[in-house]
């Protein structure tokens, strides 16, 4: 007997990866659906959880399985990804998802504060308005834990130099650019797709 065709997949993706995942999607998975959720939801984990849970529920109701292209961004993530028909990329946060665990840890230990294109482009808005940290407090807080800002240049969008300079000036840290390939993120998403298939097979047995 031929096994039933698995349901199609939606990659519910944080908009912090909009450019990167769009690029990968066009090249490798054009048959998948890729809805994005605003990365600014991270400022309110309760709201982020509600929006993600609703989005997953909607996709499942429409007969699609789900890969969450997310880190461990709200406390309910483990429960959400444990549902039948749902898997999540590995990694605790977006920088780790792009760099891989070992490189992420190495750079973090070395004092890096990571910035991806979408957040870097906003300049100091996040610190000033969303966290309420004026320049004095932002500088103190950031210099307590970090030695530099590290922009992860995935090569898909121009480096937002003005935004980076604005963050650097507000936080009192120098900024550097680290070119990174999309291979780690791509492999991570493909691994989640494989696990999703394995989950479907397990459910059939």
């Amino acid at each position: 007997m031929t096994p039933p065709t698995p349901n199609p997949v939606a990659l519910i993706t944080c908009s912090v990866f909009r450019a990167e995942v769009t690029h990968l999607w066009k090249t490798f998975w054009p048959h998948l659906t890729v809805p994005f959720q605003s990365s600014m939801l991270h400022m309110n984990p309760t709201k982020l959880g509600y929006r993600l849970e609703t989005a997953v529920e909607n996709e499942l109701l429409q007969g699609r399985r789900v890969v969450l292209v997310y880190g461990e961004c709200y406390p309910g993530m483990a429960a959400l990804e444990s549902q039948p028909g749902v898997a999540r990329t590995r990694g605790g946060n977006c920088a780790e998802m792009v760099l891989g665990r070992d490189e992420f840890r190495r750079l973090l230990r070395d004092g890096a504060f990571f910035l991806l294109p979408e957040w870097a482009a906003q300049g100091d808005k996040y610190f000033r308005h969303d966290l309420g940290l004026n320049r004095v407090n932002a500088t103190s807080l950031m210099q307590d834990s970090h030695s530099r800002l590290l922009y992860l240049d995935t090569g898909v969008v121009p480096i937002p130099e003005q935004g980076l300079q604005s963050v650097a000036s507000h936080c009192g840290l120098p900024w550097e650019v680290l070119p990174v390939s999309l291979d780690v993120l791509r492999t991570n998403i493909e691994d989640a797709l494989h696990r999703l298939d394995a989950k479907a097979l397990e459910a059939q047995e």
Partner: protein
Amino acid sequence: MPIATTPNQTEPALTDVRQSLITLIKQADRAGANELLDAWANRHGHEEVFKMLLEPALTAIGESITGEKHTLAQAYVASKVAEDMLTKAMNQPGGNAATEPTKGPVVLGNAESDFHALGRRMVATMLRSKGWVIHDLGNDVPASEFVDKALETGARIIGVSAMTMTTAQGIRDVRREIDARGLSGRIQLAVGGAVFLVMPGLLEEVGGDGTAANMFAAPSLFDRLWDQSIQAEATL
């Protein structure tokens, strides 16, 4: 910030000064808060600053800021103001009773693979301001290192911070290490971090002995756990 005075007073009423301090911290105005505290310290000494102003203000802020926007900035500034005052008091000629360690020692650190240092540092500052001796092991600390340090220093409490569900699982290893070395009860396990606020049952799941809702509540948690450790040892 203007502080109310009454006609017969040469200085502002304590309650007004305290309220001004609370307002400044809530506005994340570290310099303003320090200026106010310095002025008070010049008149009354650093010990009085801690007892009469800073501790009551921090307690009041801890009770009120939950759910407010910009809580991070307020909590950060509160901890830095406390740290600033501790540093100044310690630098006084002959030291100062307010900064003399009277409690502890305890061991703090972030769970293995956890790099969110801010909460741990703020808790450490709060505890220091209450006289605790802190051995802060930093981020990404293996379970055995926590217990080794507790044994080396005679600490009765290990405080482990974790931000996410995944890193919180590393706290189980600390629990196992404590139990495996026959130190259950004698060494109490305090846990904290954002994930514990929103996941009911996680404290028990990872084997913690207690948690605090925020840095302001940490000192009373540590007081309680210290007592529990002594009681547990007495019954052994």
